[in-house]
């Protein structure tokens, strides 16, 4: 973890309310798939946690949705602007070398952190199923990017305006995807469903954060079994083994 002044290389809209920003850090840190950065927005106190979607030679990419004041301000920034960024932070999606196939399940802006997972698995030639869920056709992004990596991509929308109508679970059923190792990130209700239906794999969680580094206890969640045990989503998380965390919707 460090604080770095990262330069915006590009910042463009890629779907409804959804932006892709490429950043160039002063020195390129090692960023693992699933880790996040914590971005200072001018005029706001708390940093905004955003997952890293992919890492390249000397840049990295984030995908964010405009939901409030902070992400709104981010969306207005142009190329060349310098951002005060803390990171990389948190745990990552472990990449196993002994698997035959993996299933990535992403919902909305939960999709981006899965991209780097797909990339690393595809580099090893492992079969990657990708199931994406969006609200509607206009919200869809990254479908082609996953395809270009050679993943098998299946998309669903809640309103049926594209792909399967329904949730990602509906989509999986519909396409008879049987792969049992999942990597998932998205809305809490989706994670809850994934948690219920799978035994192997990893989930990535969100929480309102203050420090982002494990000091304030702002972002904790409980262990599923041992109610005395807790984890900090910013430190032990955001990625946890499936079944580890108590999910309260």
């Amino acid at each position, binding site marked *: 973890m460090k604080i770095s002044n990262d330069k915006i290389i590009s910042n463009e809209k890629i779907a409804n309310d959804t932006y892709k920003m490429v950043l160039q850090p002063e020195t390129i840190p090692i960023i693992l798939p699933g880790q996040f950065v914590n971005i200072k927005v001018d005029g706001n*106190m708390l940093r905004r946690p955003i997952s890293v979607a992919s890492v390249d030679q000397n840049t990295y990419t984030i995908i964010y949705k405009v939901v409030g004041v902070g992400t709104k301000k981010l969306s207005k920034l142009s190329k060349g602007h310098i951002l005060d960024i803390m990171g990389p932070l948190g745990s990552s999606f472990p990449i196993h070398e002994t698997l035959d196939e993996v299933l990535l399940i992403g919902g909305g802006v939960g999709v981006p952190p899965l991209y780097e997972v797909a990339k690393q698995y595809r580099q090893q030639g492992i079969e990657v199923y990708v199931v994406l869920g969006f609200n509607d056709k206009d919200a869809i992004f990254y479908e082609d990017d996953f395809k270009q990596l050679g993943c098998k991509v299946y998309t669903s929308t809640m309103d049926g305006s594209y792909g399967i109508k329904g949730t990602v679970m509906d989509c999986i059923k519909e396409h008879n995807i049987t792969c049992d190792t999942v990597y998932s990130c998205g809305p809490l209700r989706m994670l809850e469903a994934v948690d219920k239906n799978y035994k192997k794999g990893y989930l990535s969680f969100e929480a*309102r954060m203050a*420090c982002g580094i*494990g*000091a304030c206890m702002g972002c904790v969640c409980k262990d599923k079994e041992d109610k005395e045990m807790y984890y900090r989503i910013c430190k032990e998380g955001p990625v946890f083994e499936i079944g580890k965390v108590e999910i309260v919707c």
Partner: protein
Amino acid sequence: MLEIKLPGLDLKNPIIPASGCFGFGREYAELYDLSVLGGIAIKSATLEKRYGNPTPRIAETPEGMLNAIGLQNPGVDAIIANELPWLATFDTQIIANVAGASEEEYIEVIKRLNANETVKAYELNISCPNVKHGGIGLGTDPTLAANITRMAKEVATKPVYVKLSPNVSNIVEIAKAVEAAGADGLVLINTLLGMRFDLHTGKPILANLTGGLSGPAIKPIALRMVYQVYKEVKIPIIGVGGICSAEDVLEFLYAGASAVQVGMYNFVDPYICPKIIEDLPKTLKKYGIKNIQEAIGRSHHE
């Protein structure tokens, strides 16, 4: 020029991360050497391990934030076993912040910490809701505040600072009651009670409904309380509330603080404490102040 001696605390500089905003220092130790700090006020210790409040526990506000952590901590015994020996390896002064749901809990926590040499002073957090008094903070009633201070002083083998709640009609009354009960110093202020609402659901953002407001937004209130209390008490005051620069520190010293704590700004800039410590000598010089001592209470002089 930055040293300041307070009861039990031999501070190389007046900068202390505030309780709850620095954990037990482990995360920040990965970023810089904690020995640069004047002291560290560790997270409130309770007798047993506490999980605290449900989440969300955090909400943002203009130049501030709300928190409703609910005193999550591993309990005093675990702190003694796991955190204090590690903190002892740094050349800085450790202040143990003590909390509890009843007066007896405070006393028991203090008893267990008494033998520990790393802890140089206690800071009683009397803002938290107290089960014995219907969930009212001891800090809003002068009699209750004086009473817990007296009880703490009876058992404590180290100086006792009392950290006051700003959610009161008359901070001076509380401060004087606590001084009369034997407090060695005061810490001013804890958070102000606030709320935010979710525009979509219409519900409070925090699961706990209300939370404690901190950050630059509350600085003018903290400064006023330090100023008012300094006029009426003889014991030293540690100022806290919204500090994020050497200039802010100077304002608190002028108002009457002898040292300061930095709270939520650690989250905005994790290097804020060492930065302020580095800036402080230049800043004092810029405004013609020779040493910390000269600035303390300057607004009250002549």
